[in-house]
């Protein structure tokens, strides 16, 4: 099973490398990338300074795998990559990187919506929002 977790934030340079790797695939016409970034929401009058991510990593990687397989079946894609942070990610940093490629644009747009929706719903990742006064709250996807 592929490990979709990266320790800490996902760096812009890593995203650039991922894009560059696809320039040899000359049947690709369209890429779509979704990035989740940690927001400094105000909770109980305190600013979120970071999210500390944890996960049932084995189950999460299985879920990522199943979602990827289902997406490949549903949409005509050339490539698909998913990375999620584990550990601390500061406000403004990137915690989710979803990347799909296809011959045509319509495919990638539908695929990324489907993928991101299922990731948020089905992957056992937990987020502890660290506040500026050193308290915390647990994040919940709606």
């Amino acid at each position, binding site marked *: 099973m592929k490990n979709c977790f990266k320790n800490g934030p996902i760096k812009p340079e890593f995203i650039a490398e991922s894009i560059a790797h696809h320039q040899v695939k000359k049947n690709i016409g369209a890429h779509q990338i979704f990035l*989740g970034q940690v927001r400094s929401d105000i909770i109980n009058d305190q600013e979120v300074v970071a*999210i500390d*991510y*944890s*996960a*049932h990593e*084995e*189950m*999460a990687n*299985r879920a990522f795998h199943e979602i990827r397989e289902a997406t490949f079946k549903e949409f005509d894609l050339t490539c698909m990559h998913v990375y*999620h942070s584990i550990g601390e990610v500061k406000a403004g940093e990137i*915690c*989710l990187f979803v990347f799909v490629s296809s011959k045509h644009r319509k495919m990638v747009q539908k695929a990324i919506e489907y993928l*991101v929706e299922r*990731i*948020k*719903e*089905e*992957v*056992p*990742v*937990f*987020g*502890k929002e660290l506040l500026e006064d050193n308290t915390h709250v*647990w*994040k*919940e*996807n709606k």
Partner: protein
Amino acid sequence: MNVQVNYFGKIAESLNMSNEIIPISDNLMPLNLRNFFEDRYPHLKESSYKIAVNQEFTEEIKSNVQISEIALLPPFAGG
């Protein structure tokens, strides 16, 4: 049998532990897991969580099942 139980996120925090071994006797089967854990830790009644046995979501265990892990998973927050 002795079962490895893993707790995550807010649930682990509220229990002040991330895992434990719980003996579950065969004559309890079929066992409603939510009732079982909420009897053991009544404050879980106030919590929202999913239960997975051997990495599959379920609320119940039947007899004669080999259990390598039970996991209590609070609401997901990925992305």
